[in-house]
């Protein structure tokens, strides 16, 4: 029967996509284990097993796993997921493939906030040994976070004042982004060399900066916001067909758009303030996923989370092992790894723009 054929095709298609998601979960699990075992100091699987089962409660392996690798690996997983889903949600509600925490000026604002704090409040210094130390990372992060939120608030206020159209939000974001970049440059111009070093050091996205506490703070927001995005996936689907159609399907368009922007900005601002600037993940991961499994938000959003985690964790693992014992900040690698991958997908993947 014809009718069953339509349904069968649909079920088969969904099945394949779920399988893809499942493979991503498996891959992420394996990569997590690999990332815990590898680094400047190699650990064995048995050591890891003993640490996790509580057979070893002290010593090098224990310290490396609990105090260094695990927080770092989990930060990569959570931050990657948070950046990717924020990017996906922003692109959907703004109906623009170029929307991301980076393009909307959130990273620039965070960098400005951090610079202010480091230079004006003196929360960072470089010692003559060459080691860069941020004396008070929390104040720096708080200042970065405040600036990002301020920037978001200005964008949303402008949108509310005029009309909450995607174009206004994107243009305002770009304008604010360059304003904050100018501000950062101005501050750096008057800063001392050691302070500039701290500012630059802060900007390198690096998931090894975080402790369990900070990981906890990030997770506390990334997880519920992601669930909330996924819960709204049909609303975003409807929005994709245009504001009028979405309204006719029962979506309160303006409210949905503003709330999604607040959620996505908040999460990305939090991540950037604690981890530093990690470009690319928020912009590119959603596109990769769209090219691999199509645009249905119900799958796009969760799979973006997974792919974001995968990309950031893979990048971080490469960063820790590529020129061992030197460790690179992951922000550099995401772009090195992501850009060719993305170009490959542009050439090979399904087309939609």
């Amino acid at each position, binding site marked *: 029967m*014809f*009718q*069953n*054929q*339509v*349904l069968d*095709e*649909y079920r088969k*298609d969904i099945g394949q996509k779920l399988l893809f998601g499942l493979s991503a979960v498996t891959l992420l699990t394996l990569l997590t284990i690999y990332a815990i075992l590898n680094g400047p100091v190699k650990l064995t699987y048995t050591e890891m097993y003993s640490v996790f089962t509580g057979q070893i409660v002290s010593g090098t392996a224990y310290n490396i796993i609990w105090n260094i690798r695990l927080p770092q690996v989990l930060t990569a997983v959570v931050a990657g997921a948070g950046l990717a889903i924020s990017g996906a949600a922003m*692109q*959907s509600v703004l*109906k*623009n*493939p170029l929307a991301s925490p980076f393009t909307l000026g959130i990273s620039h604002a965070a960098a400005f906030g951090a610079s202010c704090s480091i230079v004006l409040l003196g929360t960072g210094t470089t010692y003559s040994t060459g080691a860069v130390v941020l004396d008070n990372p929390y104040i720096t992060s708080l200042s970065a976070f405040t600036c990002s939120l301020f920037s978001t608030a200005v964008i949303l206020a402008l949108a509310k004042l005029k009309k909450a159209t995607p174009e206004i939000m994107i243009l305002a974001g770009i304008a604010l982004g360059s304003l904050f970049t100018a501000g950062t440059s101005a501050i750096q111009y008057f800063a001392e060399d050691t302070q500039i070093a701290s500012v630059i050091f802060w900007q390198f996205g690096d998931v090894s900066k975080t402790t369990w506490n900070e990981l906890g703070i990030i997770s506390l927001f990334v997880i519920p916001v992601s669930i909330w995005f996924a*819960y709204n*996936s*049909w609303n975003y*689907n*409807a929005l*994709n*067909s*245009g504001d*009028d*159609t979405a*309204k*006719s*399907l*029962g*979506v*309160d368009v303006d409210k949905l758009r503003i709330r999604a922007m607040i959620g996505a900005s908040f999460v990305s601002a939090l991540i950037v303030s604690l981890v530093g600037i990690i470009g690319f993940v928020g912009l590119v991961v959603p596109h990769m996923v*769209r090219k691999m499994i*199509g*645009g*249905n938000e*119900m799958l796009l959003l969760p799979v973006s989370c997974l792919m974001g985690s995968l990309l950031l964790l893979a990048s971080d693992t490469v960063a820790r092992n590529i020129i061992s014992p030197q460790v690179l900040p992951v922000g550099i690698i995401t772009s090195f790894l992501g850009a060719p991958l993305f170009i490959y997908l542009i050439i090979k993947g*399904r087309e*939609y723009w």
Partner: protein
Amino acid sequence: MKINIEGLEFSYNGKPTLKNMNLKVGKGEFLSIIGPNGSGKTTFLKCMNKILTPKQGSILIDKYDLNKLHREDIAKLVGYIPQAERGAFPTSVFDTVLMGRKPHMKWIPSSKDLEIVSDVIDMMDLSSFSMKNINELSGGQRQKVIIARALAQQPRILLLDEPTSSLDLKHQLEVLEITREQANNDVTVVMSVHDLNLAARYSDKILMMKDGEIFHGGGTDILTPENIEPVYGVSVDVKRDSDQIWIMPKKIACK
């Protein structure tokens, strides 16, 4: 459901676009709105499901005030087919039609939702490309997908904004037959249309609009040369068979 509109006024940025509109449409009635480009047909339809909020006047759906209904509840009752639509990111035909079930479903579509969708896809003859991206379809095929979405919504009122504008001869008739069928099943239909012959053939009632005002309204018998010429500025011949009206444009009338 009945629609009852009284004293409706609408302005775009202070520019009055709809003036003193009054309209009654009965349950299961098929109303066609005709009028020249820019006369306000789309605007009027958008007011009827709160895409636009009029500055004055009242719209009642049965006994409910449209203004006081929640969007989600309106979406369960009123289906809307826009004049033109282009998504930002592509979706498959199936997913697009499934969107019509959105007002009725929770997070995951039920098997009943999926069945309704596949039935509608079948009825609209879209089965052969149900998993294709809508951006890869022809204009007419896409228009049919959008109509299918509104049908999957199973509304009590169907608003159609020039649903046949990109369809070929056969599909025009097919879509209007399906729409007529809906009206026969007590769905109230309001459609804007440029083809007067189609309007005459399928509608119960005609509403003629000009410059944001109702010029005339009534049965299909109001489609006379005396009414059409002042609205469109075109002189026409109108022929009547026993149950069919033919309207043939002659020439552009001098102003």
